[in-house]
């Protein structure tokens, strides 16, 4: 039952809400209770811009359950312009044409669903930054 689990992550998955350490400025995504860099425990909520550079990626050809219908698809780690890295799918692209260093932006997309009659889980995904 993924309902409360998905719902709880809504701020992160829907609008890239992150936590910025009030002491050292380190940005944590997802939010943490303790700053991984300085140990401080007070944070300010910020929303990441959604723009970043592709650090590395792969093309999933043998997909886990629930993702079979969209394979092959790309998953990458993106260094956001705020400095924090985020893993996510890269959609609306030809995976073979992706390159490390590509500029990507986030879009709001369907990630998975609990069967045809169950909950639809939405999240950020990345797309090439071509201004559409």
């Amino acid at each position, binding site marked *: 039952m993924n309902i409360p689990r998905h719902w709880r992550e809504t701020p992160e998955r829907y609008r890239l809400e992150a936590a910025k350490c009030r002491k050292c400025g380190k940005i944590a995504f997802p939010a943490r209770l303790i700053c991984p860099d300085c140990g401080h425990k007070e944070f300010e909520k910020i929303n990441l811009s959604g723009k970043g550079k592709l650090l590395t990626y792969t093309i999933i050809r043998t997909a886990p359950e629930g993702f079979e219908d969209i394979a092959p698809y790309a998953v990458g780690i993106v260094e956001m312009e705020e400095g924090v*890295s985020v893993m996510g799918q890269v959609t609306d692209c030809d995976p073979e044409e992706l390159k490390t260093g590509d500029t990507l932006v986030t879009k709001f997309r369907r990630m998975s669903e609990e069967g045809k009659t169950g909950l639809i889980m939405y999240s950020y995904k990345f797309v090439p930054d071509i201004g559409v």
Partner: protein
Amino acid sequence: MKEVAIIGIGIIKFGELWDKSLRDIAVESALNCLEDSGTDRIDSINIGCMSSGLFIGQEHLASIIADYLGRLNIPSTRVESACASGGLAVRSAFLEVAAGMSDYALAIGVEKMTDVSMGEATYALATAADQDYEAFHGITFPGLYAMLARTHMERWGTTREQLAEVAIKNHRNGSMNQYAQFPFTITLDAVLKSTMIADPLRLLDCSPVTDGAAALLLTTVENAKKLKKHPVVVISGIGSAVDSIALSQRKDLLELKAVKTAAGMALQMSGRTINDIDFAEVHDCFTIAEILVLESMGILEPGKGGPATLEGYTALDGKFPVNPSGGLKSKGHPVGATGVAQIFEIVNQLRGNSGKRQIPGARIGLAQNMGGSGGSCICHIIEAK
């Protein structure tokens, strides 16, 4: 703290064991271990298993395994650290003996993976990644290591052939291992033409889904000396460390910090340096993993893992043999059993019982077992006294 020796080792043939259950293979490996040790005494049981809950719907292994082993009324504990659960069970048994809580502590590593479909197995394994911020996005374990492989290739110029050589070398070793799941050699062509799983990793870059179990019996060096059945083999150092579970949270993708720290900790405890080590069993769940591990432990400089492998540095007859057992790639990777099976191989090598795979004059071996994409790591230094 007492000095700890390994007096018994047991394993079963790894593979798709359709006619055997988890309790069958755990007990079988333990019985083999007891027979090897020449003693029948067990004061505590330490079980490493990653995900019996997802693989066979059975938790509470501490009870079921002790029960079917016929050893009730003693402490029995299950530990879990994903694919490093086996190594962690050995550490737990070591602590029992070193602390004087048990005179004889049994470590069992076990995983029964083939009772579920490939999709369900993939899901179970992916629980070793960050469920909410990695697996949620449809990433798989081959996918995580594929991203590391791409980074290594782009930063260091590591080639597909160099990656393939890890698998070829390990299969060559494993072809001589009677316990291996895939005891045959493979060619470069076969690796490079195998099905693409997650670019740039192909099927033959990946360790398989395996049923398997292995067991070790630990006691004090003092007790071991009295047994006289085998040369005395001791655990001289243990290191255990963790790193961020999610790759995105790490500053440098190619530095496996848990591996570096755990190896350093184990060496320091044993009073050894990396140059004192004769050979290693390392966690080659994917070809790139062996290269990253060797670089993170300081056996090879960063970026040199690929070329060194291709040049035979890590071959059985190389300067530093790695995975004489065939590694996870050829021997098989029953996740919870792997860390224990690695030490089974090392003890056999130190006893001089490895037949065609014997590394001449092997005195000190290192076992490196890791969980997830390097989120946890346990290293053991094993020495012949």
